[in-house]
Structure formats: structure tokens, C-alpha cells
């Protein structure tokens, strides 16, 4: 290897610093040895190398190092095997910065993350706190609204409990002669019984001065839901005054008050007419007596009555008529002398009141012009008994009773009657022959409806016709049965109703007379249901069963045998009312227990009891299939026969649905006893008759008596005077006689009376005049005609329901407005607070959102920085590589690689960090909406509308008050007090579009928005509908008023009349008068002179002729002062029996009756009778 000079100069420095290898060194040295120029160059390089060495050796002098004083200069140290280098933890020391940096980075990242999380937690806590604060306010608002709603919801019931629904039911007219029984009902608007003090007044005010009212009567009572009260009878009503009933209940709220005008019922009288005999002859005197008493209380009339007595002969001509005022005790008396001007035959004595204040009473008697000597007649049959289809032959014979002479050549009129069938004779009966006989022949039909027949023969003897009857002996057999057993069924109350228990009374008669039977009630298929049997041989009976719908029942008669008929029971009605009074006869003072059943849906009824046309008690009830018990409590005077009727109020009228008669045994009575009667009297003997009258407790009772002693032969074989307490309701006295009812303290008598009364009633009773007028008053006095009230007995129902509900509505509206005002005020406070807290929440929430975005921001900027660094590195590496490439340096690949890698990473980083879905900064919408909406608006403003009564008032209350049906919405409804269900029905039936429109309109009016939640919307809608319904209801209430139903035009009820006293002929008072305090005095009142007659025997007076006087005593006004009356009279010469009759009445309305017999027999004759006292 050889170098040239220029190459050698480049290698001189390497040679000086030993950088050349051996070959280069040798070649260079060879060249230097032979090249002076290069040697000179080497010298210059060496000089520069010295300069460099001097520059490198900076210090020329440095203080020498010395061994430290504490270090031994020659320390005996152990000789190490090798000299170790000082420990140099190169790796540890080199790793420390990275670890420290990593630790610092971790610390920085961890610390930053911790600080960030801590701050984030604090800010989140702030947001949650703010959110809780807002929600607390929302909760308070919701609680306040809920509390207000609850308070508003409890208002209706609490206010309804303070309002009193006062209802009064009673007679529409004041009844002066009877206790006026009313029932007051006090309930709150929740339908619960309210205990409140009640004051009832009867006020009278002059018609021209309504302000000058005078309280006639006042009752203070404590009502515990229902309380009866009675206005006393006998109040003096000023003439022309307007009577008003005022009832007031003092409640916790406003007092409830109802009032209405009452009319004054005209008095009702009942008159009895008694004659001394039934058969008179021309020239005799007819004695009569009238007793007129108040029909209800039986007291003598307080007003002056004038009677008119008229005799109507057989020709129908009115012969005598005399007006006469009534005398003391309501008694009138008179006499007529029967002259030959009167036609012979059936005559009538008619007594009426001059002004028609009591109904005309009549009594018939017979005027006989014939022989005074009676005939003895007889009909003799050719056989002892006849069967249906037999030929009957009979012989009639008549003789005169005085001498036994035959009644010859007298025409005979014969009639034959079997049951109600009249039979014809084969040939007319010829006149009597010389023996006074005539032949009668006829044939019985093969089938008879009765086995009772009679032959009636009338013999004309001059102008007088004698009539005789003879029973026809008919015997039934199996071959020829006798039909005609009449069975009548009387379901208690009126109808048989399917599914309701029925008590069925039945009556069995044959030929109009009671008959007995035993049998079984069976179904159509013959299945026996219940056995039946008549009781007490009166042809009356009772059985109980429950009829089924669609089934027919009949009576299968077992006895009497041979009866083939099976009477059918009335068909069970599918609907109806059954009225039952198990105790048909009860005593005065006991409650009258009535049970009423209604088939089908329950409905309101009025159960009323009337006694002799006077309402004695009434009650409004709601009756269903299970039955409702009604206890009626008539006043003390309400005894005797009571008519218990179940009415349905409809259109202002009372429609009777069921009725029956019951009897309450009066506690007050007049016991009359006859004293001093001997078992036998002699003809013409003087008799002293003494009667004692006592009350029911034995205390002597002053009374007026009728004392009559009359020959029994002159009395008709007719009915005796009917019991007074029955005659008011029962018009046919023979029914009473056949029932054998004499009200005694005897269970059998009670049962018989119950059976008898149960067969009467409005559907079969001859006087079905029930109260048909119901005057309904809704809290204010309504004008109505007197004719309405005059249609007594009529009911009035005073009811403050409308006013109470109006007051309730007003109070409820005011209370709700108060609640609303408080709630609104509270809500405004909370809303203000909520707005403030919501702003705070928005602020902290925004700050939290920003803070949450901080890591993203840092990362984004860090990412950008990293990309910039990579980009810079790449660019620099690329530039450096290019530079080196330009300079020709080797080893540039790694620089290009670094540049490429950096730029690639930068590109990837840009791609990875491209803009994506940026997160919205600020508040989260859900959170914001959750808090911004709040708890919703206050709902009470819509509740503050007019409250709906049916929301709080039980439906039953409305149902019970719904009375007036009208046509509404094409269906049958109730115009007044419609039930809530009705209104719901109507609302549901309203067109949906119209309803929606109204709802929207109402919603707009209330400022509602559709942004409310569903629950709130539904609640608002409900409240709006409630308000709308309330408006509709208010309009309905203001709508066409219910037209009052015109009362039934009927005559005033005061139709009972009084008796008339007739001035008799100039018959002087008997010489023999009465002893004691009842000496025949002129009546205290009236101008009429009571006619009394006490017989004086002619022979005892020394007068000639036989004394055949039949009426030996007629004392129509015998006053028993102190309970004792005594009178004296003479018997006639007749050997006969006299009937003694004592009728008494007391000033306080007690009535009594006594009967007896006087047997007159000549001395020595055996005793055939004795005085019998009834």
C-alpha cells in the first residue's frame, strides 16, 4: 500500500492519535521517509496537536490531593484477590429517571384522576343536592295538593253530616176531634239518623194579618232519627184563621225548618137511630131516639146540629117532617102518631141534618092495618124429607088465634124458594076452603144449588095480608148431591204475590149462611200444600203459604162429603205488595205491628192507619222482598176498627196497594148494669128499673141513657144495634151478627173478629174511600186549594231536602273555596321556592356537565399535541435523512424509517381522532324535564265548582225521595231528586262529540294544557265532568217545575150527620116520673122537648078496657148522674116477655150497652124466664 501526498496529509492526524491500523501505519511511514513535504506537514500537524493537547489540558497546576486526616495512610487492609471497581449500579441509576418519570406520570395521572373524581363527586353531590331540593319542593307541592284534595274529599261527608234532612209526614188537615199524629224524621245528608231537638208548632194567624200569629200548640221533642208527635185535639181555631204547622230542627249547622198550611178538618159525626118497636098499628105512637156523637172520639158534638125527621109511608110519600135541634149529650128524641092517612106496609123513618153534616140514617118499621088478632097457620108436607127431583105436596091451614075459627075463602099466594132459586108450582094455589085449607104442589129440580128451601104463604084477610114461612126439608145424597158451597178467599192485604208469604183468609157459606169445611190447598198437579179448616163454626178460616209463580192452587174439600167443586185460589200476581198484620186484634196502647213485602225492586211506600176516617199514624218506608216491619202507634182515641193501608205515592196521589182491617180493643168503655130486676113479674106490676154506669176501672161514670122496655113480640127479628166501634167501618150489621162478634176479652172472640175483619178491605169493603191525596211540601209553604185539604184524610209530607241540599251545596262550595285559597297560597309559595331552587339546580348541573367534559378536552388536546409531535419528528427525521443523503452520508435508512413511522402514526392518529358524535354540553334533557315539569298544577280550582250532591249523599236517600216520575230522555225517570245512577246513565247517553266539546271548552276555560300527565288529565277530566254534571243537574232542578197534581175532587169528609129530634104529638109526659137526679128535665140545650113515656096501667088507675100496651118504657134521655139512674113504670096486662135495652154514652166518649128481659106471668104460673143482662 502506498499513499500519495494528498492522501498522506489526511492521515497525519490519525497517525498522531493512533487511529491507523498496522498496514496504514507502515505505508504512511514509508511515504514520510521519502517525502520531505509530507514530513514538513507532519511537523505542522504535530504543532497543532500540541496546541490541541494544551487546550485539552486546561490546568497546568492543580493542588495535589492529600490523604484525609482521619484516613490512615497505610491502613492494613486485607489483600483482595482482585481489585473491584467501585460499585456502580449503572442500571439502577439509569432506570431511576424512568421509574421516577413513570411514577411521576402515574402520580400525575392518578393524582389528577383522583382530584378529578373528587371534584366530580363533589359536583355530582351538589347536583343531587340541588335536585333533591327541587324534588323536595315538588314533594311538598304534591303533598300540599294531596292534603288539599283529601281535605276537599272529606268535606262532603263532614258537611253532609251537619245538614239535617227534616221530613214530616202526617195529616194534611188539623183534626179537631182526634189526636193529630205526625212523624218527624231527622237524618243527615249521609242518610244516617240524626239526634236533634225538634220543635213543632201549630200556629194560627188571621188571614188578613199573617204577622199576628198565635201559637196554638207547641211540642218539644228529641228526635233520634224518627220521632212521632201529636198535636192535641180540641184546639180552638179562630174563625177564618190560617193554620200553619211549623217544624224546626236545631242542628249543628243551620237549623232545618219546614212549614205548611194546614186546613181544618170538618167534624165527622155518627148517628144512631132507635125505634121502640118494629111493627105498629094505626093510632099508635112511634117513639124514636137519635144519638149523634163525634165519629172518632164518640163525644157529643160541640156544635149545634139540627135534625130533620121524616116518615115515609109505603107509598113513598113523605108525611111528616120536623126540624129540631139536638139535645143534651147529642141525643134527640121524638114521636109520631100513626094515623090512617099513612099507607099500610113498610114505612121508613129518616133522620138527617139540616145542613147535611152527617149522613142520613134510616130505620124501617111496619104499619099494620090488619086484624089485630093474629092467625095460627101451618104447612104440612106429605113426606118428612125430600131429595132433589122429588114431587112435593103440602097442605096449608089457617085459623084465627082468638077463637080457632077457620079462615075460609081467603086468597092465598104461595111461593117456593130453594137457595136463590124460585120454583114454580104445578098449579096456582086455590083460595082456602071452608076448613081454611089449600093444597100446594111442586117438584124439586134434579140438581139443587142448596139444600135450604122454604115455602112462603101469604093469606089475605081483608085489607091485611098474613105471611107464613115453612122450611122445606131437603136431604142431599151421594146420588143427588147438593152443590152451592161457596168458598171465598181473601189474601191478607189484597193479592197473592208470587214468592211472598201470604196469609189467606177464607169464608165458607152455603145459602148465605156460614158453613164449615175441611180440606187441603193443592197445586194443579194435586200436590197438597196446606190443610185448611174453618174455625168456631163461623165459616171463617185462615191458612198460610207462599205461592209460586205460574202455579195454580185450588181447595180440595174433604168435608162435607160429596162436594165435588174445587174452588180456585186467586192467581198469584208476579208483582205487588203484601201487607200483613199478624195480630189482627190488639189492645189499645200496644204498637200496631205491620209487615209489608214488595216483590221486585224496593220502592218507597207509605203505610197509614185510619180510624173512622181519621189518620191515626203513618210512616214512610222503603219496602223490598225481604219485607219491612212497621210499628204504628195510634193515639189513645184511635181504637176500634182501623184501616191499615199501604200506599204508593205517585204524582201527588196515594195509590192503595194493600189494605186490611184490624181491631184495637179500646181501653175506655162504659159498663152498664141493670139492677133490681126480678125473675118474674105480674101483669100490671109496677117496676123500678135501675141502671148503673161505670168506667172500665169501676169508677161511676155519668152518662146519658136510653132505657126502653118493649114487648118482644113487637120487635122485629132483625139485627140488634151493631157494636159502635165496628159500625164505623162495617156497614152491614148482619155481617157482624153472623160473625157473632161481641168484643169480649176472649181469645176466641179476638180470633173470630180477626177472621171477620180480614175478609173486609178496600177491594171488597163497601166504603173504599182511602186517602188519595198526598201534599208534598219541599220546605216552603205551597198554595193549594182548600179542596185539597178538604179531601180528608189526606197526607202532607213536609221535606226540606231541596233546601238542605242547597245549603249543603253552598256550604260545600264555600268550604272548598277556602281550601282552594289556602292550597293556592301554599302552592304559590312553593312555586316561588321551586323556581329559585330550579335555577340553582340548573347552574350546578351545567357546571357538572362542563366538568364531565374536562377529561375529554384534555385528551383531545393531548391527542392533538401528540400528533403534532409525531408530525414534527417525522418531518425532522425526513429532513435530516435528506440532508444526510445530500451530504452523501451512509446509514440514512433508519432516519427514513423513523420519519415514515412518525408520519404514519400521525396519520393514523388523525384518522382515529376524527370528529365523531360530539356530546352535547350542558344539562341533560331528561333531568331537566324531570325537574322542570314539577308535580303538576293544583287541581282544586275545578273542584270548587258547584259540588255534586250524589258524590256524598247516599243514593238511597235520593231513591227514597224520588217520587215524581216523568218522561226524560225517552225513558222513565224521576224529574226531582233523580238518583246518581240516573244521571250517570243520562251522561253516558249524551253524544260523545258534544261531551268532548264541552269538556274541551271547559278545559280551555280552566287553562289546562295537554302537557299534563295522563293521571292528571284523567283527574281533570273527571273533575270537569263532575262540574258539568253539576251544571246539568242545576239546570234540571231549575227546569220545568213539577206540576202539582190536582187533588181528587171529592166531597168533604164531614158527612156524618146527627140525629134529629122530632116533636111528637101532644102526648103528655107520663104521670109516673123518674126518681133520683134524672127526673125528666128539659134538655139544657135546644128547644126540643125530649119525649119520655112511662106506662101507667089502666086497671091500676081504675080505667076500663084491657091494657095491651107493648111499649111500657121509653126514656131516651135518662141521665145517670153519678153513675146511677132509676126509673119507674107499670107493666101492661099482657102475659109476655119484655126486652129491656139500655144504651149509654158519656161526655168523654164512652159507650155502653145492656140488655135484659122482664118475664110477665100471672101469679102461680111456673117461671119460664129471668132477666138476662147483656
Amino acid at each position: 500500500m502506498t499513499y500519495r501526498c494528498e492522501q498522506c496529509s489526511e492521515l497525519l492526524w490519525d497517525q498522531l492519535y493512533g487511529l491507523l491500523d498496522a498496514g496504514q501505519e507502515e505505508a504512511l511511514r514509508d511515504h514520510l521517509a521519502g517525502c520531505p513535504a509530507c514530513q514538513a506537514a507532519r511537523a505542522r500537524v504535530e504543532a497543532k496537536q500540541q496546541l490541541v493537547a494544551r487546550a485539552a489540558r486546561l490546568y497546568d497546576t492543580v493542588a495535589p490531593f492529600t490523604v484525609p486526616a482521619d484516613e490512615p495512610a497505610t491502613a492494613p487492609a486485607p489483600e483482595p484477590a482482585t481489585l473491584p471497581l467501585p460499585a456502580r449500579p449503572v442500571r439502577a441509576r439509569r432506570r431511576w429517571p424512568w421509574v421516577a418519570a413513570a411514577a411521576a406520570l402515574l402520580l400525575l395521572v392518578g393524582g389528577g384522576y383522583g382530584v378529578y373524581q373528587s371534584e366530580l363527586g363533589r359536583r355530582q353531590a351538589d347536583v343531587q343536592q340541588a335536585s333533591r331540593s327541587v324534588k323536595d319542593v315538588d314533594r311538598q307541592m304534591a303533598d300540599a295538593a294531596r292534603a288539599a284534595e283529601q281535605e276537599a274529599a272529606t268535606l262532603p261527608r263532614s258537611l253532609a253530616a251537619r245538614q239535617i234532612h227534616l221530613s214530616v209526614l202526617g195529616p194534611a188537615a188539623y183534626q179537631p176531634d182526634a189526636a193529630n199524629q205526625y212523624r218527624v224524621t231527622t237524618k243527615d245528608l249521609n242518610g244516617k239518623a240524626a239526634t236533634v231537638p225538634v220543635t213543632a208548632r201549630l200556629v194560627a194567624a188571621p188571614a188578613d194579618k199573617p204577622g199576628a200569629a198565635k201559637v196554638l200548640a207547641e211540642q218539644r221533642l228529641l228526635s233520634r232519627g224518627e220521632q212521632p208527635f201529636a198535636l192535641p185535639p180540641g184546639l180552638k181555631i179562630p174563625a177564618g184563621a190560617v193554620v200553619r204547622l211549623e217544624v224546626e230542627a236545631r242542628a249543628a249547622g243551620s237549623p232545618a225548618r219546614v212549614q205548611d198550611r194546614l186546613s181544618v178538618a170538618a167534624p165527622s159525626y155518627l148517628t144512631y137511630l132507635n125505634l121502640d118497636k118494629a111493627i105498629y098499628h094505626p093510632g099508635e105512637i112511634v117513639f124514636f131516639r137519635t144519638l149523634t156523637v163525634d165519629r172518632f172520639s164518640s163525644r157529643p158534638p160541640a156544635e149545634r146540629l139540627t135534625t130533620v125527621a121524616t116518615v115515609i109511608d109505603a107509598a113513598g110519600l113523605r108525611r111528616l117532617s120536623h126540624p129540631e135541634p139536638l139535645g143534651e149529650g147529642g141525643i134527640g128524641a121524638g114521636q109520631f102518631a100513626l094515623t090512617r092517612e099513612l099507607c099500610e106496609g113498610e114505612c121508613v123513618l129518616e133522620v138527617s141534618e139540616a145542613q147535611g153534616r152527617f149522613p142520613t140514617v134510616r130505620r124501617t118499621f111496619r104499619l099494620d092495618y090488619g086484624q089485630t088478632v093474629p092467625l095460627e097457620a101451618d104447612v104440612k108436607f106429605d113426606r118428612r124429607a125430600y131429595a132433589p127431583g122429588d114431587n112435593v105436596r103440602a097442605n096449608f091451614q089457617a085459623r084465627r088465634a082468638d077463637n080457632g075459627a077457620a079462615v075460609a075463602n081467603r086468597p092465598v099466594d104461595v111461593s117456593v124458594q130453594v137457595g136463590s132459586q124460585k120454583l114454580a108450582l104445578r098449579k096456582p094455589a086455590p083460595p082456602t076452603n071452608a076448613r081454611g085449607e089449600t093444597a100446594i104442589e111442586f117438584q124439586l129440580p134434579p140438581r139443587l144449588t142448596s139444600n135450604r128451601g122454604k115455602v112462603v104463604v101469604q093469606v089475605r084477610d081483608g085489607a091485611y095480608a098474613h105471611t107464613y114461612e115453612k122450611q122445606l126439608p131437603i136431604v142431599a145424597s151421594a146420588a143427588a148431591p147438593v152443590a152451592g158451597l161457596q168458598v171465598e178467599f181473601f189474601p191478607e192485604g189484597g193479592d197473592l204475590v208470587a214468592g211472598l208469604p201470604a196469609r189467606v183468609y177464607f169464608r165458607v157459606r152455603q145459602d148465605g149462611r156460614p158453613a164449615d169445611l175441611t180440606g187441603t190447598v193443592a197445586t194443579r198437579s194435586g200436590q197438597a200444600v196446606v190443610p185448611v179448616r174453618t174455625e168456631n163454626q163461623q165459616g171463617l178460616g185462615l191458612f198460610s203459604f207462599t205461592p209460586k209463580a205460574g202455579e195454580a192452587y185450588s181447595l180440595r174439600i174433604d168435608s162435607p162429603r160429596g162436594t165435588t167443586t174445587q174452588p180456585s185460589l186467586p192467581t198469584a200476581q208476579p208483582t205487588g205488595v203484601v201487607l200483613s198484620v199478624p195480630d189482627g186484634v190488639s189492645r189499645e196502647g200496644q204498637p200496631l205491628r205491620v209487615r209489608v213485602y214488595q216483590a221486585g225492586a224496593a220502592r218507597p211506600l207509605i203505610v197509614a192507619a185510619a180510624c173512622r176516617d181519621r189518620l191515626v199514624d203513618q210512616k214512610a218506608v222503603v219496602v223490598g222482598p225481604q219485607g219491612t216491619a212497621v210499628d204504628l202507634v195510634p193515639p189513645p182515641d184511635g181504637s176500634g176498627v182501623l184501616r191499615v193501608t199501604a200506599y204508593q205515592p205517585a204524582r201527588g196521589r196515594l195509590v192503595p196497594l194493600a189494605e186490611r182491617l184490624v181491631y184495637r180493643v179500646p181501653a175506655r168503655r162504659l159498663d152498664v148494669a141493670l139492677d133490681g130486676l126480678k125473675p118474674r113479674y105480674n101483669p100490671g106490676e109496677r117496676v123500678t128499673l135501675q141502671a148503673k154506669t161505670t168506667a172500665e176501672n169501676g169508677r161511676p161514670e155519668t152518662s146519658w141513657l136510653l132505657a126502653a122496655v118493649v114487648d118482644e113480640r113487637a120487635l122485629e127479628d132483625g139485627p140488634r144495634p151493631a157494636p159502635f166501634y165496628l159500625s164505623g167501618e162495617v156497614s152491614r150489621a148482619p155481617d157482624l151478627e153472623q160473625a157473632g162478634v161481641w168484643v169480649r176479652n176472649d181469645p176466641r172472640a179476638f180470633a173470630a173478629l180477626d177472621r171477620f175483619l180480614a175478609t173486609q178491605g178496600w177491594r171488597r169493603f163497601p166504603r173504599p174511600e182511602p186517602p188519595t191525596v198526598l201534599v208534598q211540601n219541599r220546605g216552603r209553604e205551597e198554595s193549594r186549594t182548600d179542596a185539597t185539604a178538604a179531601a180528608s184524610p189526606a197526607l202532607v209530607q213536609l221535606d226540606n231536602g231541596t233546601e238542605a241540599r242547597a245549603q249543603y251545596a253552598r256550604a260545600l262550595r264555600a268550604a272548598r273555596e277556602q281550601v282552594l285559597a289556602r292550597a293556592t297560597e301554599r302552592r304559590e309559595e312553593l312555586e316561588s321556592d321551586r323556581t329559585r331552587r330550579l335555577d340553582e339546580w340548573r347552574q350546578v348541573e351545567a357546571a357538572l356537565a362542563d366538568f364531565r367534559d374536562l377529561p375529554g378536552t384534555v385528551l383531545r388536546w393531548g391527542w392533538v399535541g401528540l400528533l403534532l409531535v409525531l408530525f414534527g419528528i417525522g418531518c425532522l427525521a425526513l429532513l435530516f435523512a435528506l440532508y444526510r443523503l445530500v451530504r452523501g452520508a451512509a446509514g440514512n435508512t433508519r432516519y427514513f424509517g423513523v420519519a415514515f413511522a412518525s408520519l404514519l402514526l400521525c396519520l393514523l392518529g388523525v384518522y382515529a381522532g376524527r370528529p365523531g358524535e360530539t356530546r352535547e354540553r350542558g344539562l341533560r334533557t331528561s333531568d331537566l324535564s324531570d325537574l322542570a315539569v314539577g308535580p303538576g298544577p293544583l287541581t282544586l280550582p275545578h273542584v270548587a265548582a258547584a259540588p255534586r250532591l250524589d258524590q256524598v249523599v247516599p243514593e238511597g236517600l235520593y231513591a227514597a225521595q224520588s217520587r215524581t216520575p216523568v218522561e226524560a230522555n225517552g225513558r222513565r225517570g224521576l224529574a226531582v231528586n233523580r238518583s246518581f245512577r240516573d244521571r250517570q246513565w243520562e251522561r253516558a247517553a249524551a253524544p260523545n262529540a258534544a261531551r268532548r266539546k264541552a269538556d274541551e271548552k271547559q278545559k280551555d276555560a280552566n287553562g289546562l294544557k295537554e302537557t299534563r300527565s295522563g293521571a292528571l288529565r284523567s283527574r281533570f277530566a273527571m273533575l270537569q265532568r263532575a262540574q258539568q254534571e253539576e251544571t246539568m243537574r242545576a239546570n234540571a232542578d231549575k227546569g220545568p217545575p213539577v206540576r202539582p197534581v190536582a187533588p181528587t175532587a171529592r166531597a168533604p169528609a164531614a158527612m156524618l150527620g146527627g140525629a134529629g129530634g122530632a116533636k111528637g104529638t101532644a102526648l103528655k109526659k107520663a104521670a109516673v116520673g123518674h126518681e133520683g137526679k134524672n127526673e125528666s128535665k128539659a134538655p139544657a140545650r135546644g128547644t126540643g122537648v125530649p119525649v119520655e113515656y112511662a106506662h101507667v096501667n089502666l086497671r091500676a088507675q081504675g080505667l076500663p078496657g084491657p091494657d095491651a100496651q107493648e111499649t111500657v118504657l121509653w126514656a131516651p134521655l135518662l141521665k145517670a148522674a153519678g153513675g146511677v139512674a132509676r126509673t119507674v113504670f107499670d107493666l101492661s096486662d099482657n102475659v109476655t116477655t119484655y126486652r129491656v135495652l139500655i144504651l149509654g154514652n158519656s161526655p168523654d166518649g164512652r159507650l155502653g150497652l145492656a140488655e135484659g128481659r122482664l118475664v110477665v106471668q100471672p101469679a102461680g104460673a111456673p117461671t119460664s124466664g129471668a132477666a138476662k143482662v147483656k
Partner: protein
Amino acid sequence: MGDLAVSTSARAGAVKDAKTSGEDFVREFNGVRAELVSTLFYLLGNHEDAQDAAQDAFLKCWRTRQGLGEVRNLRAWIFRVGLNAAKDLQRNAWRRRARPLVGTPAQAESATTSPPEALAHGEDLERLRDALLDLRPEEKAVFLLRQNGDLTYEEIAEMRRCPVGTVKTQMRTALQKLRRVLKDE
């Protein structure tokens, strides 16, 4: 290079002779103290650090003087300990921050040179010193260890744990930079 190798071997023999006593070690250390402190000055940048590092190297060497017998090249060993001390001192952040760079100490000029020559000579020295300070650390270390420490390139390579070729390359780079200062290119 042959002179240097000879001198090195001669010094190594002297150290071997002096290892038997501490005085010999101190003497040997003080003999290279000017080169060591100068090297440390260029590595650390200021005189105080250079003095401290030299002091640390002295103490470390003193404390391990019992093992000097095993050291073949005491001078190289001393420079190695000195460089480690300098690195330790450089890692001390507090020292790095607290010790600002100060001016280089003045050197006595030769009395034989005229003032203009002395001025030109001084300027060259100043430029060379600045160039030395501007060398990259590895180039600086290789040059100083060779120039002042008189270490062979193999020793330098062992000390820096890098190949000998790399050391020589770094040496050539350093020389080129210095030659540019001397306008010797």
C-alpha cells in the same frame, strides 16, 4: 502511538511498584491530577464540579487502594473512577441546577512567545476549548480519555461498553471538529 504505549507501560510498572504503600498511590494520583481535573472540567462544565469529582475519585481510589495490585493500568483506572464520579455528580439535579458554568481558569503563557503570537495562540486555545465544550458528550469523553488520560482505544471501549470501531469513529469526529477550529482542513 508507540511512545504513548511505551510510556503507559512504564507508568504501569511504576504503579505496580508503588502499590505497596499509600504514598505511592498519592504520588501517582497527583501526577495525573492536572489531566484528570481538566478532563472533568470539560465533562462537567465548571471548575468546582471538576474539583469535587476529582476529590471523589481520589477518595474512592484511596479507599480501595488495597486492591491496586490487581490494576494493570492505574492511570486508566483513575480516569475511569473520575469519569464515574463525574457522572454521579451530573445525576445530581440539585448540583446541576445550583452550579452555573463559570469561566475557564487562566493558563500561564510561555515566556518565549511574542505578544502577537501569544495573542494568536491564546485565541486558538480559546476556540479549541470552546470546540471541546461543544463536542457531543461521547465524542468529548473519547477524546479527553485519549488525550488527557492516555488510555488506549480498547480501554476506552471497555470503559464505555461499546465497540472499538465506534470509539475510533467518535475520535475521528472529534478530531475533525477540532481541525475545523484550527482551519486545518
